[in-house]
């Protein structure tokens, strides 16, 4: 009996860490998609959804709270998920996988729904909370990029610093960038050629507008030539809840395409950091034409993969690396001096000790001789 118990305990001891390791350190890159909801029962999502999360400002997650994590967290009933735009999340995940079947998805439901399926308001706080979740869980799920195909156009006047001042979200985007995780947002589809949606207008994010099947900029795509980072293909046949295939168009889709290509490039060039990968995509982009002119911003993955990216250091970076080298040399030098000093001290101590011993021995010998004579 005891032997059996010990055997079970030993087995558990060996199995448990292996399971934990498998869940935590998957080598497959993952994208965090922030959207409405997902029909994770679709065959094309089998083994592709690493985790489901619900983060909303309302207590309408499937568990009746404002936060939920685990299978079913981004679930909506089949009759509700097809209404009021809630199929959007499933479509976005589908478009992402069409463009990078080698990656996996962490899906975050950030849009709440009432019991009858009405969409609930989602403000900056929701986006901020979701990005923070990604920050905390990025290494656990090997998250390499974030995409959110959502936004609003409640902006300041064109020609001014029109992007709403949302400091906490901006900071989250900066924090994720410092972790080498770019955040992709859509430009919006409102035919505004001087302003892009929030949060795409946050400079530290990666903003994406959309082109049609011919690779020409869609007239619907918002564009601010000074802020917009990329254009990508925005017309797709996407799988919707229940497996129904639908035509979708917009910067939402383009965001997923660009994010999928970014991860593919990251997989191919793991030695490059996020800034270098984005730079690689920009330098190898194709030209695309639209009502607002021609822009060399259409992401071209084939060219990006071929492009021999050479990191050119700025004067500041060279100076920083010099200072770094000097600091490292100083540490080595100080260590050597400390070691030599310690050796010298030890030698002096040893010599003094030997001298003291010799003196003591001589004294004893002398005293013995004196005693003999006496």
């Amino acid at each position: 009996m005891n032997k059996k118990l010990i055997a079970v305990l030993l087995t558990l001891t060996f199995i448990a860490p292996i399971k934990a390791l498998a869940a935590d350190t998957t080598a497959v890159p993952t994208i965090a998609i922030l959207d409405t909801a997902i029909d994770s029962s679709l065959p094309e999502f089998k083994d592709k959804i690493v985790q489901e999360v619900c983060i909303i400002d309302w207590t309408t997650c499937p568990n009746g709270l404002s936060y939920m994590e685990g299978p079913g967290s981004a679930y909506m009933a089949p009759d509700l998920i097809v209404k009021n735009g809630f199929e959007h999340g499933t479509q976005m995940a589908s478009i992402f996988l069409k463009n990078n079947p080698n990656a996996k998805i962490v899906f975050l439901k950030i849009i709440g729904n009432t019991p009858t399926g009405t969409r609930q308001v989602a403000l900056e706080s929701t986006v901020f909370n979701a990005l923070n979740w990604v920050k905390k869980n990025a290494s656990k799920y090997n998250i390499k990029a974030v995409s959110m195909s959502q936004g609003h156009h409640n902006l300041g006047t064109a020609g001014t610093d029109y992007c709403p001042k949302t400091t906490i979200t901006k900071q989250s985007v900066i924090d994720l960038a410092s972790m080498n995780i770019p955040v992709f947002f859509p430009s919006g589809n409102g035919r505004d050629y001087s302003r892009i949606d929030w949060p795409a207008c946050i400079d530290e994010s990666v903003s994406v507008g959309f082109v049609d099947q011919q690779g020409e900029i869609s007239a619907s795509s918002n564009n601010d030539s000074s802020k917009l980072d990329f254009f990508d293909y925005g017309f797709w046949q996407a799988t919707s809840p229940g497996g129904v295939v639908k035509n979708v168009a917009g910067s939402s889709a383009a965001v997923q395409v660009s994010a999928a290509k970014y991860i593919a490039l990251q997989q191919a060039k793991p030695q490059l950091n996020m800034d270098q990968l984005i730079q690689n995509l920009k330098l190898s982009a194709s030209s695309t034409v639209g009502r607002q002119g021609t822009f060399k911003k259409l992401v071209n993955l084939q060219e990006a993969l071929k492009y021999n990216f050479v990191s050119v250091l700025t004067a500041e970076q060279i100076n920083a690396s010099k200072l770094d080298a000097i600091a490292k040399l100083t540490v080595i030098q100080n260590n050597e001096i400390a070691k030599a000093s310690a050796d010298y001290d030890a030698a002096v101590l040893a010599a003094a000790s030997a001298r003291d011993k010799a003196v003591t021995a001589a004294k004893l010998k002398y005293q013995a001789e004196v005693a003999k004579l006496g």
Partner: protein
Amino acid sequence: MANLTVLEEIIKEIGEELYQRWYNALAIEDRTEEASRAMSVNAGETSVWVIQTFMNKFNAAAEELKNQSIANN
């Protein structure tokens, strides 16, 4: 009597409460039929005005919030 909406019910309750408070605050010798009628009309109008102002402000704030809500792109 026709069924009242929730809002009408609230307005009616507030109006009655207001009237009662005003009436109780009057000196006994001032509690006349005429004063009572005037206060009843005033209390009703005041409660309607208060609720309407509140609803207008509330709706404006809700509308502003709705504009800041993210939507599918």
